[in-house]
């Protein structure tokens, strides 16, 4: 498993504001580079979903109750066959192990709590730092 505390070596680093146009532009840019490196089709679907969930979690949950002016730090590095991505917010963090299982029958009708499970389902590796304010993901193409 990747160590979420370790910054991704050689990554592009962006401090991202809570602005939908800026978020969309960054995601499209990342997906464009990913496609150039062979991540199309289901891989692109997986990467888009995981990035969206990580960024949404950072702003909506990580910065909940904090200033909307706070930025999150996004790191990404893409090479053929390997996509790495990290999101760090400036909030107090959370304990991902304390999240209830959203697939249990008693939780199916609850509207929240699926972001982390989707990241884990679609990425090859997902890890959080001890504080729980930084998530790091890696997607390895099946043929890599």
């Amino acid at each position: 498993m990747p160590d979420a505390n370790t910054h991704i070596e050689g990554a592009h680093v962006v401090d991202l504001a809570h602005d939908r146009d800026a978020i969309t532009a960054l995601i499209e840019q990342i997906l464009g580079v990913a496609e150039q490196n062979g991540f199309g089709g289901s891989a692109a679907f997986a990467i888009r979903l995981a990035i969206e969930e990580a960024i949404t979690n950072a702003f909506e949950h990580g910065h909940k109750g904090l200033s909307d002016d706070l930025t999150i730090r996004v790191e990404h590095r893409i090479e053929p066959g390997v996509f790495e991505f990290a999101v760090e917010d400036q909030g107090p963090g959370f304990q991902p192990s304390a999240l209830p299982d959203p697939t249990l029958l008693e939780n199916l009708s609850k509207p929240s709590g699926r972001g982390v499970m989707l990241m884990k389902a679609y990425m090859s590796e997902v890890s959080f730092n001890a504080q729980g304010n930084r998530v790091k993901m890696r997607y390895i193409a099946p043929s890599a």
Partner: protein
Amino acid sequence: MSESRLRLSENEGVTLVEFVDRNILDEANIQAINEEITGEIEKSDTPRLLISFSNVDHLSSAALGALITINNKIKEKAGELHLANIDPQIYEVFVITRLNKLFNIHDTTDEAREAFAN
């Protein structure tokens, strides 16, 4: 009120809901969609909604959350919600989250229409 992100049409007591956007991802957009559909639910004593995903390429867990909220509101009024035309990649998201067990999902809107009671 911002521009609607939905196309609504009614046929034989069933309201068909279609999305304008191919990506249903960001919170503000999802909240607007949720409010607009909630408005439709509140108009009816027993709401009957058919949501088609025919134009949709991507959705997020926040969008799933909005669908669950809509489903809960319809159930409270003893109404019916059916979903149709879900892209296979998106259907996989429903399977992973087991929400395919919560929702009535059909391949086409025609099949969904036949599934409504009465």
